[in-house]
Structures are given as C-alpha cells and as structure tokens.
C-alpha cells in the first residue's frame, strides 16, 4: 500500500511544482518585456540628408534614433586606401564594396563597437587614428577610412545603417 502511495505523491508534487514553475515563468514574461523599448521608442524615425554642401574630405554628423551617424565624403586617396586593404589584415573582415553604395560616400553609425563612445575624426582638427578614419578616445580603437576596426579593443566595424539614395545628393536613413 505504502509502496504505491509514495510514487503517486511524488508525481503530484513534481507536477504541481512544474505547473507552478511554468506559471511563474509566464508571469515573468510581461514584466521582463516591459523593460524593453516601448512602441514610441520603436517607431522608427527616418532622417533625410542633403549631401550637396559636403565637399570632398568633409564629414557630417547627424542624429538618427538618438545615435550619431557619420556621413563622410571620401577623397580619392581615402577610397583607394579603403579598397586596397588586404582583407587578411582586418579584425572584422569586410570588403569596402560591401559597406558603401557609392564609393564617395561612407555612411556609418558613429558609435564605437567597444563600449559605445563616439569616436573622434569628424572635425578636420580631430585626431583620426593610425588608419586615417576615426579614433575612439575612450579605449583607443582605430578605424580606417571605411569605418573598419584596425587596432584596439573594439571587436566589430562601425555598423552601416540602412539607407537609400533618393537622388544624386540626397539620402534617407532608416
């Protein structure tokens, strides 16, 4: 009699605990999800930019989704540097052609992939790092003229945001 009772009780205990666990986990979902960005934050703002005032060698910083976006009008020298890089020398291997739609215009998120600082290099007076692109002052990451990480603790290249050329001199980000 008792041999039979014990496993039955064990089963009930286990079933109850499992159900309780599943219930607690389900209850946790809305609370955890509530911490994620709300619908207003998610509503993707897109930004249009006029590129015509930007001369060769100049850069512009614009705000998209609360983050800085670097728009760089690259010089022929900078384009050649970016194109002629041996992929094997890169930390995060990516061809320049995969990062631009038009060789003259490089558009990347201006957020260091290490710990989120804004790298220097947008102003002509800024230090541009060892590879002529950007230099993050926080922990010393160097980016090249294609926004690719070359030296320092950052693991990834500066990400390219989604954008389209509306015409020769207008782009829409987002």
């Amino acid at each position, binding site marked *: 009699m008792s041999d039979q009772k014990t496993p039955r009780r064990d089963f009930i205990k286990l079933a109850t605990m499992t159900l309780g666990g599943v219930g607690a986990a389900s209850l946790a979902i809305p609370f*955890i999800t509530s911490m994620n960005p709300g619908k207003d934050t998610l509503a993707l703002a897109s930004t249009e930019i006029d590129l015509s005032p930007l001369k060769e060698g100049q850069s512009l910083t614009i705000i998209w989704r609360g983050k800085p976006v670097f728009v760089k009008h690259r010089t022929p020298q900078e384009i050649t540097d970016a194109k002629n890089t041996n992929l094997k020398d890169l930390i995060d291997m990516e061809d320049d052609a995969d990062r631009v739609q038009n060789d003259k215009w490089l558009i990347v998120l201006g957020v260091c992939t290490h710990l989120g*600082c804004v790298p220097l290099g947008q102003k002509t007076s800024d230090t541009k790092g060892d590879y002529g692109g950007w230099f993050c002052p926080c922990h*010393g990451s160097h980016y090249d003229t294609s926004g690719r990480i070359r030296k320092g603790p950052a693991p990834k290249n500066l990400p390219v945001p989604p954008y389209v050329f509306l015409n020769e001199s207008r782009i829409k980000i987002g």
Partner: protein
Amino acid sequence: MSSNDPQGYKKTLNSPYTGLKGWIDSRLPLVRMMEAEYLKFPVPKSLNYFWSFGGIAMFCLIGLILTGIFLGFHYKPSADEAFDSVERIMRDVNYGWLIRYLHANLVSFFFIATFIHIFRALYFGSYKAPRELVYLFGLTMFVLMMGTAFLGYTLPWGQMSYWGATVITNLFSAIPFVGDAILTLLLGDFNVGDSTINRFYVLHWLLAFSIVGLVVFHVITLHMTGSNNPTGSEPQSWDETVSFHPYVTIKDLNATIFFFIILAFVLFYYPNILGHSDNYIRANPMVTPAHIVPEWYFLPFYAILRAIPDKLGGVLAMFGSIAALGLLPWLDTSKVRSCLFRPVWRICVLLFAINFFVLMYMGGKPAEGIYVLISRIGTVYWFLFIFVLAPLVGFLETPRQPLSITNYLKAKKA
C-alpha cells in the same frame, strides 16, 4: 523541550525583563537580542583601530540613506529634467548644496572605509574558516555598493554620468549572441536615455536597501563566530574578551568622529575634489568627452578592464577580479590566520595593497603605452595572488607560532 511537552519550545521565549520592557520582549525578543548582541557581546580584547572600519562604513551607509531621502524629495529622474533639478538642489533648495555634497562625498568615504575594512580582512585572515560567510556577505555588499554607486553617478545627467553609463552598460554587449538584446532590455532604449535614467533611479534605491538587508546577514554571521583579532587566535577565556559596550562602542565612536572630521574637511573645503568637472556639463549624446574616467573607487577595476585587449575578456577579467576574491577562504591553505605570523604571505598581501593603488593610478590614465603595460602586470599580480600565491605560500611557508591574545598584549606592552 522534551518531546512529551509540545509547549516546551515556548519557554525559551520567556523574557528575563518585567514591566513594559518584559511585555514587549516576551512577544518580540528584540531587547534580549540587543543586550546579548550589542551590550554584553564578548569581543577579543586585542582589537586595534582596523576593527573600527566596519562600524564607520555602517555610519556612512546610514548617512547616505538619510541624505538620499532628502535629495529624492527634489530630484527628477528624467533625461530632460534631471540636470536642472540637480542644479536647483545646488542653488535654490535650502541647504540643498550641503545635502548633495554630503551624499556625493559620503560615497567616497564609504568606499575608503570599505577598502580599509577589506584590507583588514585580508591582512589578519578574517576570511578564513569559520568566517567564510561573513566574508562572502561582505564581498556581495561590496559588489552591490559598486552597482549602487554607478547607478547614482548616472543620475545628475552630466557628461560623465551619461558617458560613464554608456561605457559600463555596453559591457553587457560583450556577452556572446544575446549581448545587444540584453543591453536594450537594460536600457529600455537603443542608447542611454529617458527610460534608462528612470529605471536607474529606482534601482539605485533598491540596491541601497538591499545593502542594508545584507548588513543584517553580515552581522548575524559575524556574531555566530565572534570577531577575529590581530593575533588570529580565538579567545581562550572570558579574560581575553571585553564586552561590546562600552569598550567597542566608545572606541568605534571615537574612530568614526575622527573619520568624519576628515570628511567634513573635504566636504567644506574641497567638495568637488573627488568628482569630475565634466559632470557639470549637461549630458550630450553626440559628444564623448576626450577622456572618460570613472569615479576614483572604480579605477583599479577599470584598469583591469582595459588591460585585456579583448572586449569579452576585459569584462570577464574585471568582474572575475572581485569574484576570485570570494574563493580566497578555500584557496588559502595556511593554518595560520594573521599576517603577523606569516612572513611571506604578509609581503604578498602588502604587495596586493600597493598593486591596488598602482592599478587605481593606471585606471585614471589614458589607455596607451606604458600605462597599459603596467596595468597588465598589475592584473596578472591580482590573479596570481589569489590563484597561485594563496595556495602555494600557505603550503610552502613556515609560519611563526601565533601568540595567544594575552601574550600578544603582553608583548605589545613590553
């Protein structure tokens, strides 16, 4: 409490007091507890002033909570209003400047007291059996303290607040695969913003009171084993102890007053010396300050973070440096507790303390050249100390015979 007396257990609840005191005490045994744990509680008679820093840290915590409550009456946790509300506290709120400067400087002094307290534990072997849990609760509080301090530093919404928060929260993006999702979940946005400051304010309170809860556990575990002392030898008789009150209460009060006089000097003459001037510039998400430095008490750990040339590795080393300290009770193989009787380990511990300051200095310097190299050496020593020296020195060293408390006091007098 025999098994045929089901009411037996209640007899222990009968209070030794009479009157109102007795009435309360037999229902809520607080009076008895306070008397046993805080008035009559026996403490080794050989304690030196190193043993006052736990009490000092507790007074700092009380001060932080009090000033925090009054700051909270005026502070507004939103990206648009936070900076202005802090400036209002500084300029318009009656004595707001005093309360805020007290809060900001008390944190630093809380950390000073805690660092000395931890050093005391390392030097005199307070972490060793049977006090492992006292030590672990202490380390947990230290971690929570760092969390609370970090969250609190975000709240004024200055440049250092903003970029400090950005850099530190981005540490979570180092977690493989789910890092970015976790980061967004923590921030409530794609970057540090309004949602972030709102929740950081709530968490700042929550963690602060969690520390208070852990203080209770820290003290309960301490009172189970009793205090360690400079000799590391347990008291052998009542003669080797004194009662907590008035001996320790007066001594700790004396130390606390002295400590708070130094605080008052900093508070009234150099209230901003431990802060960073950039934090009086409103947060600007588009411009990173040329040189981001965390608060001084984070610098050693920041140096460890930057010493590793890999994002995930750096983050692991930084958190690991504190977690590893928690293993010390089991990695230290020596039978002798106190460094007074351990000639080799004593040098290791003192080097560890010096190394701590070296790392602190390196954490405040730019991450380049010689600074990185020294940070790396310091980081190596940190882990070497815990994982290699602790077991090895305990095994190889020949310690001196620890003195009893009575003989130690005699030797000191002579």
